[in-house]
């Protein structure tokens, strides 16, 4: 297949771009929401989480796709879990070594990448039936689609909830009420339930633009 069509042929590029909008893992396929929301109260952990998920999805897709013809069908879930768990351990150790503060903030959610539905979903639906290179691209695409939503949520939550982005204060200090100004952070944005409501609103906006996604 790769000889007849280029490495970045149209079909392969579509694997990368489709998950960003029409087949977005979070807003359309409803996969991987578990970890998506808890890490989004600030931008930095959200970006780290997206990158970790993208790496794990891409490489587990690649590995499973390479050994897909040798896995007995009955034990495939266990094989998938072992491959994914190994990759997640690697990511976790790297995070602990180089980004210790973010890794503390992410707590159990790095470990939960193992049972992230995006991974199992893509492995079952794509990697088991496709060649390694398209599977790798599909992994990157889905990781990026996941990351896009995560970063959007984190952007609004950090901006409105803490008045900062990536830890830098954007709202001038003299604007705040306690310094004699008129502005106050919306503390509700930091609370967990707001993440769900923001996702709901994102879905609402996306589906009003793309009416073919509307349910019922």
């Amino acid at each position: 297949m790769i000889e007849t069509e280029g490495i970045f042929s149209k079909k392969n590029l579509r694997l990368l771009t489709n998950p960003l909008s029409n087949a977005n893992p979070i807003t359309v396929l409803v996969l991987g929401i578990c970890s998506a929301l808890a890490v989004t109260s600030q931008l930095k952990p959200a970006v780290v989480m997206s990158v970790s998920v993208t790496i794990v999805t891409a490489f587990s897709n690649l590995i499973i796709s390479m050994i897909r013809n040798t896995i007995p069908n009955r034990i495939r879930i266990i094989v998938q879990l072992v491959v994914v768990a190994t990759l997640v351990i690697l990511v976790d150790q790297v995070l602990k070594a180089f980004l210790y503060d973010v890794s503390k903030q992410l707590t159990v959610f790095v470990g939960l990448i193992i049972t992230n539905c995006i991974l199992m979903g893509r492995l079952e639906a794509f990697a088991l039936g496709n060649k390694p290179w398209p599977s790798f691209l599909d992994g990157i695409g889905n990781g990026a689609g996941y990351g896009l939503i995560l970063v959007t949520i984190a952007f609004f939550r950090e901006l409105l909830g803490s008045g900062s982005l990536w830890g830098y204060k954007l709202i001038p200090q003299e604007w705040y009420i306690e310094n004699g100004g008129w502005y106050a952070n919306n503390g509700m944005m930091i609370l967990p339930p707001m993440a769900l409501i923001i996702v709901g609103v994102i879905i609402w906006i996306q589906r009003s633009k793309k009416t073919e996604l509307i349910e019922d």
Partner: protein
Amino acid sequence: MENYLNLFIRSVFLENMVFAYFIGMCSYLAVSKSVKTASGLGIAVIFVQTITVPANYLLEKYLLKDGALKWLGEGYADIDLSFLSFILFIAVIAAMVQLVEMIVEKFAPTLYISLGIFLPLIAVNCAILAGSLFMQQKEFINIGEATVYGIGSGSGWCLAIISIAAIREKLRYSNIPAPLRGLGISFIITGLMGLAFMGFMGIKL
């Protein structure tokens, strides 16, 4: 005794898996279209959680924790295997789910039929692995606490999925804006339920 009760209430209401940590959201949204299937999955989760959390607690205490291998002899006292915890926890969960499935099939066929496909699916439900990972983080002092935490976190998840299923059954008769139907409104309602659950934060335990 009071300690266990506190832990149970805390894990059901205050630290509810779904509303406070968004764990197990995928199956929470996918299987919550009717109360009947939702309660089937909820009960299966309580069941598996009650078994895997204490099992992983033993594993953590006697194998994985820093210095946990001391019972083998002094030479093993400074071994830290905690980096293996993800892979061992998930292996225990997958094995336990298989085992539970076989036992239930043999001794309680009616329960087995009503749980149906949900039992095997639970192996990849984030709530189960999260239960074990939170257990590791909370550093419980004995297996009783770990068991109570398992039951509590499972019940909290079960409570959440049954309530959203009941609400979604009613929603079918409401006039929701078209783009918000289905997934969108479920998210927003979960958010509102989460806000309501935050009211429990005031409880002094």
